[in-house]
């Protein structure tokens, strides 16, 4: 067993739902080193945003991530609204927050199921995903869609919440709260889960700061930072909530934080529904956004989401930059896995709730030797695929007719 093995986890692997690659160097069952490789799913979204008007960008940005679609859309819009100087009405802000919290609930329930599946506990996966249907149905009822809600528009929201829908939301929150209490009991008491989660993937608070961990990953390592509490965007200034943190610093702590956040989300939604003010839903928004730039931060279910937008007075942005939370968290994976077991690799990766296709961005080194213009880069990629993969992209027809 002394021989070292390098096991590839990914880009295609049953444990990973998205393409990313981890080369795990093994000594027996123990992990000696782990190499994270990203970039299998670069979609060029930032560049595409520059070529489309803001109205189209909104829907494109919403598709950065399947789970936190509302987070990205809201984050982008907050930046654009700041540049344009739009005063979003309170009711719209409330509705944005309600949908955002619902998204957090559905994301965290999804994570709980995925984490259970990674440690072979499929029963918990089936139970949590069954209850996730409640919130998915609620979102479909409120917005018309189960994932890409398209509820935001520039200057407000598109759909209102009626009295009848308020009742349905509150009823669903009661059911979900009771179920979440049960899951909290199972996840923190069940011996096989505890054995698999506690003291696995340890990330000390110092390392968490050094690696820039955000969101539940950071909060499980005693970093009590939450953009909802710090920045108080949307309607978060008007509600009381605790920033959940945990001092276990391991995967178990991350599970505890997420379950705690679920409970907080139910309370936030109840408060928001109760206080929902009566104002118009939107303010008229201009097609051309005046020149300017803005950075917007948003607490997505996976952590801090940052969008930067620079406008130049036309109807298209000059530059859009987005940093998805996974990019901040994925660095810490190799630290977490030091002295771990092979069996822990997938659960530790899953514990940061990775979303690799949101993460992949391209960077061109400005002062490096390989500096390329956009055209050269495009030509390079066409040549590379022709040479290495036998695909001739010049013959592939783009555009829709």
């Amino acid at each position, binding site marked *: 067993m002394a021989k070292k093995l390098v096991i590839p986890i990914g880009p295609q692997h049953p444990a990973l739902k998205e393409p990313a690659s981890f080369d795990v160097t093994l000594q027996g*069952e123990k992990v000696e080193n782990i190499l994270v490789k990203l970039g299998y799913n670069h979609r060029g979204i930032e560049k595409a945003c520059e070529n489309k008007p803001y109205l189209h960008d909104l829907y494109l940005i919403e598709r950065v991530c399947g789970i936190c679609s509302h987070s990205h859309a809201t984050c982008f819009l907050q930046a654009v609204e700041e540049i344009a100087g739009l005063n979003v009405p309170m009711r719209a802000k409330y509705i944005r927050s309600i949908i955002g919290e619902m998204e957090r609930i559905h994301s965290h329930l999804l994570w709980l199921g995925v984490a259970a599946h990674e440690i*072979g506990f499929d029963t918990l996966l089936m139970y949590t995903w069954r209850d996730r249907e409640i919130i998915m149905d609620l979102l479909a009822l409120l917005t018309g869609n189960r994932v890409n809600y398209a509820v935001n528009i520039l200057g407000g929201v598109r759909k209102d919440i009626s009295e009848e829908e308020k009742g349905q939301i509150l009823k669903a929150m009661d059911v979900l709260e009771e179920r979440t209490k049960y899951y909290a009991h199972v996840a923190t008491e069940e011996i*096989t889960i505890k054995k698999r989660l506690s003291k696995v993937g340890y990330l000390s608070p110092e390392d968490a700061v050094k690696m820039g961990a955000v969101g539940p990953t950071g909060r499980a390592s005693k970093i009590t930072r939450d953009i909802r509490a710090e920045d108080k965007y949307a309607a978060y200034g008007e509600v009381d909530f605790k920033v959940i943190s945990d001092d276990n610093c391991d995967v178990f702590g991350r599970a505890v934080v997420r379950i705690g956040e679920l409970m907080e989300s139910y309370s936030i939604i109840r408060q928001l529904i109760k206080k929902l003010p009566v104002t118009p839903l939107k303010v008229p928004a201009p097609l051309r956004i005046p020149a300017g730039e803005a950075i917007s931060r948003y607490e997505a279910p996976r952590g801090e989401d940052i969008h930067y937008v620079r406008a130049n007075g036309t109807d298209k942005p000059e530059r859009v930059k987005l940093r998805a939370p996974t990019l901040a968290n994925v660095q810490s994976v190799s630290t977490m896995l030091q002295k771990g077991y092979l069996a822990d690799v997938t659960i530790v990766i899953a514990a940061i709730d990775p979303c690799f296709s949101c993460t992949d961005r391209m960077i061109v080194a400005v002062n490096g030797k390989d500096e390329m213009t956009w055209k050269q880069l495009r030509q390079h990629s066409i040549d590379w695929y022709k040479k290495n993969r036998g695909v001739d992209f010049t013959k592939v027809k783009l555009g829709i007719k």
Partner: protein
Amino acid sequence: MLLALLSILIFPGFLFLFILALAAEYIDRKLYARMQTRVGPPWFQPFADFIKLLSKELIIPELADRVIFRTLPLVACAAAATAFLFIPVYNAESIFSFKGNIVAVIYILTIPTLTYFLGGWYSRSLYSLIGSMRVLTQLFSYEVPLLMAVLAPGVLASSWTFSTVINFYQANGFLFLVNIISFVVAIIAVQGKLEKVPFDIPEAETEIVAGTFTEYTGPLYAYFRLAMNIQTISVSALLAAVFMPFGYNLGFVLGVIVFLLKILFIIVILAVIRTIFARIRMDQMVMLCWKYLTPLALFQIFLNIILKAVITQ
């Protein structure tokens, strides 16, 4: 001669075993699904899966040893089925009976596990390699408690032959209930032998794809799956004979029904265990087997020795 051939091929031989094995898979999957509030597969699903896998393309890895790679699934099937022939079904005598056949059955039942190891080893794939290492590690941890637990009832009956053990307990009423500790130990160890949650470490899907079976496709994989199902039946029959030694003098029809009920009971227990636990790690599995199961099985053997001294006095 003809009768012997019939009993090997049809009842209680291969055909009976084949149907039982598929039924066992169906019951396991259906219960698993229903406990997770899913609908679950229809009754013919295991058979349909078997036929489907048989008709699929067979891909053998370039570096694998072709002969061994092809032979192993059949060896696994044959070994699991052979074990069943030594286990009594409706009367205390099995088809082929000899002295000390409990020990023989346990050892024959080890052969499928070894073929899983060899199958993974000869696949020459990284995932298979790790899977086969895990199969072997797991074998060394559950085999000892399993062996001790299954032999413990025989200590009381002063024999390791099925017919003697069964006749001894049938003559002594509810005496078989003293073996409850070793029954629990055996059930847990069997869960490890059948590689089911919480001990599905060798084929942990989310860690090493499919473990030893990663490179097996089509018909060969179908035979491995069949071997696993036959093994389930054989092990359940073994536990039924050793720990539930009653209902073996009821005649053919009633005897078979009682036998099936006993097997159903054990399969249900195995399915429930598989539903309610998470997969544990290899080191935790070894720890569990050597720290808790082995002492428990030892305790049962000592208890039986003392009991035996009390009874014979």
